[in-house]
């Protein structure tokens, strides 16, 4: 809803003006019909925007879900005499179940394997529609009933217009609500890769499946409307080429913006209609020549405006208000901090082998509460691998790692996070287009519990206010509060590293793992970082950090662990370690 918040009257006016289209006398019936189809396709495109632009998964198979919806309703109304209204739950069920099944296998696919998979199953579903006797083979099913509302038939375009666009409006509101929530942040964070989201407790596979099923449900509802507007179904509108057209709508409109889906559907539908009447006359024969224009359009858009057309369009509309921070929101409960000096992390003879390479060779060390422990060593010493063992990204070949009395070995990163361990990354992993505030709020994912449905229905507001308040509090703590509404990518590298620390703090951790926090920072920034870390320690936080900057490490840490070629060569207080001959040799080379 936030999209409409800054100028509700303007939006209400626009919607009312739009609602007048069917009753303005001079608009030809043909255009009203066209708007009905634009509405139907918008539903599919909105789903794709969420899937592709927001969730980072590309599907060429949405037309198949439109087909599932349309055929379900067609069979139930034509063969079993159901009313079109009564079939809606069945449509939702069919689309939902088929999407869950296809999603369970295809969502696992990463990168380009997913779109290839969607092409494959949309082709096989197309031939399935065309060859099953009960679905009328390639002829399809015709003579379907129109919608009717309290005895008023919605057979004509000027009446069904309202039903279709009511569905579109609902989809816009529900989708925007979803994006502006705890689950929405998890979904939006998927685009930048799942590692960061996973390490803050997001079940990324589940988040992906959620968007996938949601997009399929919208497509299914579109199919339901299509069946009873068209009054007939046949396989051809649900083939892979239709799927490609739907993706074109999302890419053209702006994959990443809910209203971009509507814009894309509008442009593509009107363009297709106009081209179909103009091009054959121009070329002098019949054929699907609009595909030439669509294909070229798709390539050109990717070359010149990868964000789609919506951002250009949105400049003329009032900007949505930034998120409000409610000072009165309830503070999130905090986990009890371990007593100072208590053992919280113990790594015992941890070993990591990649084939014949021993990256970490039986390393043992301990971290006590309230300390800053540094993990240092030359390049290739196994520091990052050790980090990955501790955070659960890698499973050690042998050895034991215990954190807060639990065995970490065999646990997933998100399960380790739930025990109270938060981390930053050597290469910053923030969702570039998301605001700093929302990136940081992702850190508090595990401190909330509201799911998809309550987000869609806006039942999550008090929890959401608490999460955002916590994010703002941590941003204030690290000194980035004035940047909170900027997109994360607009910050300087040093600030992005600090934002990652704020995100980690949002988890309310008792152990903070920092992977080269000072890398790429300027001198003054390093000093500020040192002050911040010392202050966190004073507040009872325990920190384990990997760092190259010796000066930084020597001044800050209580305890150092030195690795070289995967083996621990020294351990102790910084000034003792600095005089250790083995360490000097590892860093400066031995005396010949």
């Amino acid at each position: 809803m936030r999209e409409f918040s800054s100028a509700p009257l303007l939006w209400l006016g626009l919607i009312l003006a739009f609602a007048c289209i069917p009753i303005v006398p001079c608009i030809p019936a043909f255009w009203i019909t066209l708007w009905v189809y634009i509405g139907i396709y918008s539903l599919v495109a909105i789903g794709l925007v969420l899937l592709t632009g927001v969730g980072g998964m590309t599907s060429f198979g949405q037309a198949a879900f439109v087909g599932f919806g349309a055929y379900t309703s067609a069979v139930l109304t034509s063969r079993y005499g159901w009313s079109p209204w009564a079939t809606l739950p069945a449509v939702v069920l069919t689309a939902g179940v088929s999407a869950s099944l296809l999603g369970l296998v295809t969502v696992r696919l990463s990168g380009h394997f997913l779109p290839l998979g969607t092409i494959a199953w949309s082709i096989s579903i197309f031939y399935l529609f065309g060859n099953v006797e009960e679905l009328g083979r390639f002829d399809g099913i015709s003579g379907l009933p129109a919608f009717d509302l309290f005895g008023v038939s919605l057979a004509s375009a000027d009446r069904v217009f309202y039903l279709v666009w009511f569905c579109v409006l609902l989809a816009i509101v529900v989708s925007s609500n979803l994006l502006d929530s705890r689950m929405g942040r998890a979904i939006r964070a998927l685009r930048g890769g799942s590692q960061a989201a996973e390490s803050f407790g997001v079940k990324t596979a589940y988040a992906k499946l959620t968007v996938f099923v949601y997009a399929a449900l919208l497509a299914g509802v579109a199919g339901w409307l299509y069946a009873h507007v068209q009054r007939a179904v046949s396989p051809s509108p649900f083939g892979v080429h239709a799927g490609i057209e739907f993706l074109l709508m999302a890419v053209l409109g702006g994959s990443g913006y809910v209203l971009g889906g509507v814009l894309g559907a509008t442009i593509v539908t009107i363009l297709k209609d106009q081209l179909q009447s103009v091009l054959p006359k121009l070329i002098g024969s019949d054929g699907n020549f609009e595909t030439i224009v669509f294909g070229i359009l798709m390539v050109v858009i990717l070359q010149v405006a990868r964000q789609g057309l919506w951002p250009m369009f949105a400049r003329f509309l009032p900007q949505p208000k930034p998120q409000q921070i409610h000072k009165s929101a309830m503070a999130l409960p905090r986990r009890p901090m371990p007593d100072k000096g208590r053992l919280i992390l113990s790594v015992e003879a941890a070993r990591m082998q990649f084939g014949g390479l021993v990256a970490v060779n039986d390393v043992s060390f301990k971290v006590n509460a309230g300390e800053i422990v540094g993990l240092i060593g030359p390049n290739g010493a196994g520091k990052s691998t050790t980090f990955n063992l501790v955070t659960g990204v890698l499973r050690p070949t042998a050895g034991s790692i215990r954190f807060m009395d639990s065995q970490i070995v065999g646990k997933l990163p998100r399960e380790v996070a739930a025990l109270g361990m938060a981390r930053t990354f050597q290469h910053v992993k923030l969702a570039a287009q998301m605001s700093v505030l929302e990136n940081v709020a992702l850190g508090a994912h595990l401190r909330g519990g509201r799911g998809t449905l309550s987000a869609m229905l806006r039942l999550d507001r008090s929890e959401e206010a608490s999460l955002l308040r916590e994010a703002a509090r941590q941003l204030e703590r690290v000194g980035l509060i004035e940047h909170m509404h900027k997109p994360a990518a607009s910050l300087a590298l040093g600030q992005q590293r600090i934002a990652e620390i704020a995100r980690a703090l949002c988890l309310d951790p008792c152990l903070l793992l920092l992977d080269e926090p000072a890398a790429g920072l300027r001198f003054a920034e390093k000093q500020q970082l040192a002050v911040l870390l010392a202050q966190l320690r004073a507040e009872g936080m325990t920190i384990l950090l990997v760092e190259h900057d010796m000066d930084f490490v020597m001044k800050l840490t209580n305890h150092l662990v030195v690795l070289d070629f995967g083996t621990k060569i020294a351990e102790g207080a910084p000034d003792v370690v600095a005089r250790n001959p083995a360490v000097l040799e590892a860093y400066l080379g031995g005396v010949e």
Partner: protein
Amino acid sequence: MNTTISLFLLQDGVINGAIYALLGVTLVLIFAVTRVIFVPQGELAAWGALTLAAFEAGHVPGTAPLLVLLGLCCVFSDMLRQRRGLNGKWFIERGLRDIAGPLALWALCIWLAPQKPALWLSVALTVSLIIPMGPMIYRLAFAPIADASVLTLFIAAIGVHFAFTGTGLLFFGAEGSRTTAFIAGVFPIGVLMVKGQSLVVLGLTIVSLIGLYIFFDKTLRGKALRATAVNRLGARLVGIPTQSTGRFAFALGAGLAALSGTMIGSLTTISYDSGFIISLKGFVAAIAAGLASYPLTVLAALGVGILESFSAFFASAFKEVIVFSLIIPMLVWRSLVVRHSDEEDE
């Protein structure tokens, strides 16, 4: 079903599989060098078949004017991108390469086509009409976004496929064509009756695959392509121009697609839109091999061909359903086996 039928089906499957193998290997090659999943390859193969059919019928093939059109598009888009440095020399160079060359080919076709050229000449003309289309497509669609994510490049490839389907309809019409076999007749080998065309397909495929092997293993150009495939940045740093290796990979891909097109034309009726399904079967094979291994791709392609011919016999209506559903377990298996990062983004 008896031995004769199963041997016949097996033969059919192996022959189709050989063509899928050639297409699959080309897909792997183009993907490795440029990271483009080259869907429109199927259209190029279909155009190869249709061009050969046109020569057989004594017509000038639609590919000839189409090549001129693509050349014009290339010059035009280069003009838009370049802006500076446009002078007489630039226009003469581009004009000769992108417009005069295709025009000369067109003229040659107009002269030769009515005389119904010999088979080898027709095939040579077909392949030389389609080879330049590869680099032209690369320049038009992919070179400007060469560093984008695999996903973006893939969507662009789908866009090209879309544009090509419409273009194919425009230049070749909706009717399907069939070419005569390279070698007519049937040869008995043991109990098996082998069609002459089968021998041609198998022979040409094996020769092409061996040729590719020699090219990649023995020549500097081939090694440069492999280096680009392994690491684009590294290849660029040691002085391999990645843009021109991209164009070269596309030329190679277009040539192989055209060759498979000329072979497939006598096995089945080809129309402007047949290419998509054919190339997707090459895909199923390429994906099964993880878009990486050439020998595995060939094996998987033979498997796809055999599965297809047997399912055509047992459940002909569901042939495509079976072949394309097969890809899903393969993809799942692949994504479990291959631990590649999904941290890529534009």
